[in-house]
């Protein structure tokens, strides 16, 4: 280094650790939260202190204590145990809606982008049509039409869920098709399936994974909302949204509704952190959003 350079005083750099923590901390925290809930959902029967539907009327509406960490509800059931079991349905519903919706939607979108012309126009207009309904209301109407129950509610959510993925899938496919490396692969005489699997898909999966992760929280929120409105589950089944609904008038016995809601909040925050972290990791330049 030159003498002149050495003479120049440099401002102190911010500590590397702090910067890394700021950048990657939330992503790790999010991953830990999500992983913890998945473990809870899988192991619920072994870690829950009580069966989720064990009614104990004399012990109803007890505040949190050593015996009942999160108190008991109107039927004397252990809120903590029901909450652990509730993770199963919430996560299952979230994953199935988003994964199926993403698979269906992106397929439609990619087909539309690939086919162009009439098919593109028709598929996208249909997508627009579904998007012109407010999702919650449409899901509510369909779920009501199909009848109460988790499977029907998931089906209803699927109907309103795929269009955004169709739009994303189409946009990504269009971008990819005009990429020079895709043209280069064509010039090299590679077969279409090879171009699709080796060049297009790997570069599309990133943005898709980000949206899927962010959307999982969203789907869990919506499912809980529909359950809260009485559509998601048939009563004794433990589900977070319906647990909040059961306790929504018990302002004095706040624990009945507060803890299940908190559970939803943590899962959704976890997925949001994961999604943001994934986006930063995939695209170090776009660290804006």
């Amino acid at each position, binding site marked *: 280094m030159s003498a002149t350079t050495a003479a120049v005083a440099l401002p102190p750099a911010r500590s590397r650790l702090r910067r890394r923590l700021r950048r990657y901390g939330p992503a790790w925290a999010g991953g830990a939260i999500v992983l913890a809930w998945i473990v809870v959902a899988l192991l619920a029967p072994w870690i829950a202190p009580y069966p989720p539907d064990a009614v104990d009327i004399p012990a109803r509406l007890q505040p949190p204590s050593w015996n009942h960490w999160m108190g008991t509800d109107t039927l004397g059931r252990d809120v903590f145990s029901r909450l652990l079991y509730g993770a199963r349905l919430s996560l299952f519903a979230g994953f199935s809606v988003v994964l199926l919706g993403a698979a269906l939607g992106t397929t439609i979108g990619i087909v539309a982008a690939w086919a162009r012309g009439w098919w593109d126009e028709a598929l996208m207009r249909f997508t627009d049509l579904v998007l012109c309904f*407010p999702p919650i209301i449409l899901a509510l109407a369909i779920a009501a039409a199909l009848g109460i129950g988790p499977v029907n509610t998931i089906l209803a959510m699927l109907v309103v869920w795929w269009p955004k993925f169709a739009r994303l899938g189409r946009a990504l496919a269009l971008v990819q098709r005009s990429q020079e490396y895709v043209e280069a692969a064509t010039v090299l005489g590679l077969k279409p399936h090879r171009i699709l699997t080796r060049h297009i898909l790997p570069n599309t999966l990133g943005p898709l994974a980000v949206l899927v992760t962010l959307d999982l929280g969203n789907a869990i929120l919506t499912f809980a909302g529909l359950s809260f409105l009485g559509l998601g589950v048939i009563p004794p089944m433990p589900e977070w949204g319906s647990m909040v609904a059961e306790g929504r008038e018990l302002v004095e016995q*706040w624990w009945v509704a507060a803890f299940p809601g908190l559970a939803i909040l943590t899962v959704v925050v976890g997925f949001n952190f994961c999604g943001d972290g994934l986006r930063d990791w995939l695209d170090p330049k776009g660290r804006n959003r």
Partner: protein
Amino acid sequence: MSRYIAKRLLAAAIMALLASAVIFLIANLVPGDPVLAQLGDIAASDPATVARWRAKWGLDLPLWERYGLFLGGLAQGDLGISIATRRPVLDDIIQYAPATLELATVAFLLSLLVGIPLGIAAAVWRDGWVDSLARAISLLGVSAPTFWLAFIMLAIFYGGLQWAPGPGRLDPIAFPPEGPTGLFLFDSLWLRDWETFHDAAAHLVLPSIVLAAATIGLITRTTRAAMLDSLQQDYVRVSRAKGMREWAVVLQHALPNALVPVVTLGGLAYANLLAGAVMTETVFAWPGLGRYTFRSAAALDFPAIVGITLVVSITYLLVNLMVDLSYAILDPRVRR
């Protein structure tokens, strides 16, 4: 510009027509026989009665003719009779709409007033404490379930601290203002009834904050991202090189560009507020469309659900139309 508006209007009308077809299909694909539901077991066992009944309601006609009849009814404002209230669905909707409109509008204004400045500040002082605050608020806003937040707010500020009034639009013993619109804030102002105005405003505080929470989160996020993007554009550097003051650079050059995505989201958010009031209204016993929707869904009151879906979808379309039109004002590149 007028051509653009005409084009958008036409597209919206076509969409509305298609939407009504979709709703009609959903209504007619309901499992369960409407004959049974309407006539009862005994009458339904007589084929002649059933045939007469089906003919009367046009159920023996092919699907597309029934759709024509449905459209005809729609044109006359006939949305059917609610099973639960036994009143025309349209009357119910007209009765409950003002409460929701008032709540959603207040929540919408609240989310714009908080979200946009917060988003701008977060982008300008990126990585500073304002930014951290904005990110925390938007994360909690979009992650907290509305119905739970409503409960928590009620439990704390009404049940615990008693700072806020309880559920409902007014004190249980108060009389609603006899104004022209059914919007209590507006009507009480109109009648110079300050006591009622105060009461209505106080009752709006908690529900509007709850309803706005998710929207505040979304608008803050979007504004921040759009502003960060806009602040990195070359034209911002050009305007700094011109010697514009920093506030002018941010507010006159960066902001107008950042507003385009915010307006899209804002329009969508308003429509979603109208629709998403379902949960807030349920917890706050707010006598609006949301609670009506909840009750109808719980009672499987199908005519009501169809009616609400249709009305809300058309509102949704109208809001989207307005978003498209405001694009044309904000971004000259769209005006074709």
